[in-house]
Each structure stands twice: as C-alpha cells, then as structure tokens.
C-alpha cells in the first residue's frame, strides 16, 4: 500500500537525518518546504514578513527535534504543521504582550489581543494548506482547475471511483480543518 511505503520511507529518512545525513534532510526539506510555507502564509493572512520568520523558526525546530517525529503517528507534513501552529501561537502571544492596560491603581494589567479573525478566502487557504499533499492535490484539481472526476482519474492513472473516494475523504478533512480554524463553520 502506498501509505505504508511512505511511512517506511519516512522512518528511513528520520533515521538517516538523526545519523547526520544531509541528503536525507534535503529530501524531507524539498518535499515539504512549499506546502509548509503556503500553510504559514495562509495562517498569517498573507503577511510575507511574518510568514518568513515563522517558516525559519519552524524548520529550526524541526531539525533540532526530529527525534520526536514518529512516522507511526502521522506523516512528516502533519508534524511540521503542528510545529507551525505552536510557532504561530507563540508569535501571537509575543505581539499581544505589547498591548498593556494600566489600571486606576497603577497596576499593570496584561491584555491579550484576540487573534484576528480570518476572512473567508484566508480560511479556505489555511484549511486547504493544512491538509496532506494528496488531499490538497485532489481538491485543487476539482475546485481550482475545475477538472471532472474522469479527467482527474485519467491524469492520475486511476479509476473514477478511487478519485471520488479520495474527494470524499479530502472534503471531510477540509471541513474538520475549517472547523478547527473557525468553529462557527463554513
């Protein structure tokens, strides 16, 4: 099965990186750089400067903590996005600490600025880029490129049924990601 093979490959890559193999690190890096950047870019509402800083922090954490990555628990891309969520949360807290209120008795009171609500397009982008690559690919093919199920199946060398099944799972995953980002729902 392709999933098992990906898992085995990520096991081997993780072991190689822990052993100091730069080539293995490069394989992981090249595979996931663009999708991580897109995810962070969406989560920072298109702020390229913030996205750049956050992406640097994410990869620095990933290379130092790769021993904590468990391929049995999920794909490397998902683990990276988890790191990105924590990096972005810490970043928001740092910004929020800059806004302070002084009370009547001169006490400093910390006011946390609420995280800005994402606009609809930003929500879609953030939810989409949080998905595994194969789900992103099928959703982009269907909703951005407006290809039919038969056309996608032809391009990928698979059956219509397989594409429909993948679309169902991708859409479900998208809804779950959306609800995490905006609990009021799509």
């Amino acid at each position: 099965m392709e999933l098992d093979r990906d898992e085995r490959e990520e096991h081997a890559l993780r072991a190689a990186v822990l052993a100091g193999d730069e080539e293995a690190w490069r394989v992981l890096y090249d595979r996931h750089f663009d999708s991580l950047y897109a995810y962070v870019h969406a989560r920072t509402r298109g702020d390229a400067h913030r996205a750049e800083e956050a992406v640097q922090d994410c990869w620095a954490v990933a290379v130092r903590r790769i021993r904590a990555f468990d391929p049995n628990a999920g794909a490397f891309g998902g683990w990276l996005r988890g790191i990105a969520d924590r990096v972005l949360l810490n970043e928001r807290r740092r910004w929020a600490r800059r806004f302070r209120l002084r009370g009547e008795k001169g006490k400093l009171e910390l006011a946390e600025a609420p995280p800005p609500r994402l606009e609809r397009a930003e929500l879609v982008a953030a939810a989409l880029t949080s998905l595994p690559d194969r789900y992103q690919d099928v959703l982009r093919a269907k909703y951005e490129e407006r290809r039919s199920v038969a056309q996608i199946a032809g391009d990928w060398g698979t059956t219509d049924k397989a594409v429909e099944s993948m679309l169902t799972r991708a859409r479900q995953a998208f809804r779950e990601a959306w609800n995490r980002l905006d609990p009021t729902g799509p």
Partner: protein
Amino acid sequence: MEKPMDGNEPLVDGAPVPPEAFRRPSVPEGLRERVLAQTGRIVRRRRHTRRALLMAAVAVAYAGGAGTAFWLAPEAPETAGPVMTAEAPSQTPATAPTAMEVASAQEDAAPVLSDEILRDAERFTLVLKRATPERRLELLREAGDRWLDNYGDVDRAVSCYRQFLDQAPAGQLAKFHPDENWLLRSLRLARLEEKGYGNASI
C-alpha cells in the same frame, strides 16, 4: 460514512470559493536556500559528532578483539611432509556449450549489472550465487543504488542493501563511503548499532 460526492457538490457552503484562496504563494527569494543552509549546518554537526563517537567505539572494540586474539592464538605447530596439491582435472572430450551456458558465462564475467538482470529476480539470484564474495558485495551494492536512484523502489533497495550488509565483513561494515546514499548509510548505522558499535545518541 458520507456517500461519495457528485461533481457539483461545493467545497464550502455559501458563496463560491474565491480563486485567491487556492493561489500558492510565491516563496521570497533566497528564503529556501537560506533556511536549508541553516538547518544543514545542524545536521552536519550531528554527523561529525556521531562519527567521532562511532569511530572511537569501533577502535576500542577492535583493539579489544585484536588483543584477545593475540593472547589466545596458539603456537604454530611444526609440520613436515609433502605439500598437497589439487589434482589436475581429468580430461573430458570437449563439447559445444549450450546457449544458456554461454549466457551464464557472460553474466559471470559481465562487468556491469544490466537492467535486464536487475529486474529478473531469478537471473539476479543466479548471478549472485556464481559470483565471488567480493563481486557479490559489489553487485548487491550496485543493485540497491539502481533500485533507489533509477526506479525509486525503496523496498527493493532496502532488500539489496540488507543482503550487502549481511555479507560484508566486519571491517567493511564500519567503513563509510563518501558516495553512499542516505538509505545505505542509515541501514549501515542501524546495523552497527545492533552489533553494539554505535550506542551513543545525539
């Protein structure tokens, strides 16, 4: 379980999804290379530290083994008598080799591992059986490299590399080659750890 969607089901309810939602942002120039350089340094440092510890462990193990072998080695006995030689093979009438024998002889002498042999498990096994131990190791290493580089087949590459490591003598097992790929290197290190040469962790 949600029934498979039809072609017209929208991605989100309500207004259509704006096209910019799907747009892939362009990565700022230089960011990719800069971050790779920063993270690559950390991976390299890890390799140098690990290699230094590994070599130290192998050196200690080798010194211990060599010392023990020297201490335990018996004295060479005095021998006398004729030196035995192999008998000359009996002469048999020459017969024309069959096509299969010719092909097999060509495979034995083949300096390169052809794709045809690589992809035919039976022929590859036969070639390995007939090869000298040194040549067998070369073939297994080359097969692993080809499966990974040319076909992207990690499973077959792992199988070849494992056989290579199974048959490699201890001294060769600990020898790292600069042109080894990530997969062989990680399997080699795992094998060394199994044998107790690489217990240090980073």
